[in-house]
């Protein structure tokens, strides 16, 4: 994943649905076209971040890992 991340949300230790709630609260902090990353070990985020993007009309870019190996889910703000 080579996307430049504008905002990284540290959701380590948070369980579902808290990482998605954090994403919904904070994605407006980046401009349209900006990229938000959600860092979390929550296994439900792998399903729910893409599902949130679909339901809210945002673009899901995919998954990479943070420096400490925790999964990181990338979202481009499109609306």
């Amino acid at each position, binding site marked *: 994943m080579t996307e430049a991340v504008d905002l990284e949300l540290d959701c380590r230790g948070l369980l579902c*649905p808290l990482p998605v*709630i954090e994403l*919904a609260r904070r994605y407006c902090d980046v401009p349209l076209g900006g990229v938000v990353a959600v860092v979390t070990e929550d*296994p439900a985020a792998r*399903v729910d971040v893409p*599902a*949130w993007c679909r*339901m809210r009309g945002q673009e899901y870019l995919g998954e990479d890992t943070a420096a400490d190996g925790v999964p990181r889910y990338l979202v481009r703000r499109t609306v």
Partner: protein
Amino acid sequence: MSADVHPCLDAASSEPLHPAAREVFSAAIESGYADPRRLHHDGRRARLLLDNARQSVAESLSVRPDEVTFTTSGTEAVHRGLLGLHRGRAARRHAPADPAAQPSTAPPSTAGPPTVLPSAVEHSAVLHAVDWLRDASGGVAPPTQSAQSIPVTGTGLVTAEAVREAFGTLSAPPTVVAVQHANHEVGTVQPIAEIAEALESLAHQDPAAGQGAPYGPVPLFVDACAGAGRLPLPTGWAALAASAHKWGGPAGVGLLLVRKGARWRNPFPVDDRVDPRTSGFENVPAILAAAAALGAMVAERDELAARQAALVDRIRHQVARLPDVEVVGEPVRRLPHLVTFSCLYVDGEALVGELDRRGLGVASGSACAASTLQPSHVLAAMGSLSHGNVRLSLGRETGADTVEAFLAALPEVLAELRGRVGM
């Protein structure tokens, strides 16, 4: 609270005992206690009751009595059906060309032993059995999203095309393909006959199966636990499993159907009971009650399904109008009594708890409501939201009043739970 004032909206987990089963059950506790293999009076009477139950189930499901096996649960029926087809196929595949030669113990020539190919949305009973086959240590690993499975559409449908494509990715044909009749979590009914036709055509296209093909199409195992009794059974399966407590029979009775002529071999130690496909002392009263419930359910099926489908349509319509709620599964090609939806920003466990506090018992596929803390593999395979998930399923006595009570309570509960997290 008594059961009367606590209407349960979770009949897909277990349907209350059908009144027709209750009478038969209590009578058969007296008359069906004996060993049906004994030749004395009480033993012959138990055997007669067991044979009657088999005949009755066969008539209810339009199959032959000798295709009917009673097991001790739906899970056991799944395991025996699936693993028995695998064993039958694997034994044939490994058989030496010369039938007079000793049975071969050599491994197959393909890379990795051929195994079962399940759809991605099978019940965990199927996936655990597939893992058990894979895992030489005896199936101690947790159920995985199977390394190789048939993907589904966004509504949870397993298409015949997806089955063909999955075959294309395998180094060798599977021993068995496992596709459920209807999905237990989202209600989607699978095109079993079309999938069976695809397996037929794949067998004809298999170059290795050319002249003197040693075996025919890959057999299809169908887990019908979610829909048996509620919908007519599909066609095209080699073995099929069902569970009595899901159609209003007692718990502790499963049903295994093995098609006449299907290559099935007992995957577990044999027992010297009435039916060589199963083991253990037959629970004649429960089996008889299960058969009575099935007969009653099938007799009232059309009326019940129409009534339930109308109530579910109303729920689907009303729930979809709530903000940030997604109804999942096939809208028309579905079980009549079941509906599933997911609500953004809501904890599934809290949702179940709040509804239960209001006297409405529902199930959830959300990770926080599961002992494994993993999101439902069914919702994951469909790409559906997994948190805030509710599965609501109507019993035969669930009325419009309960549905309306649910529809009145849900917006309040959602507003309250979302308010707690500031959403």
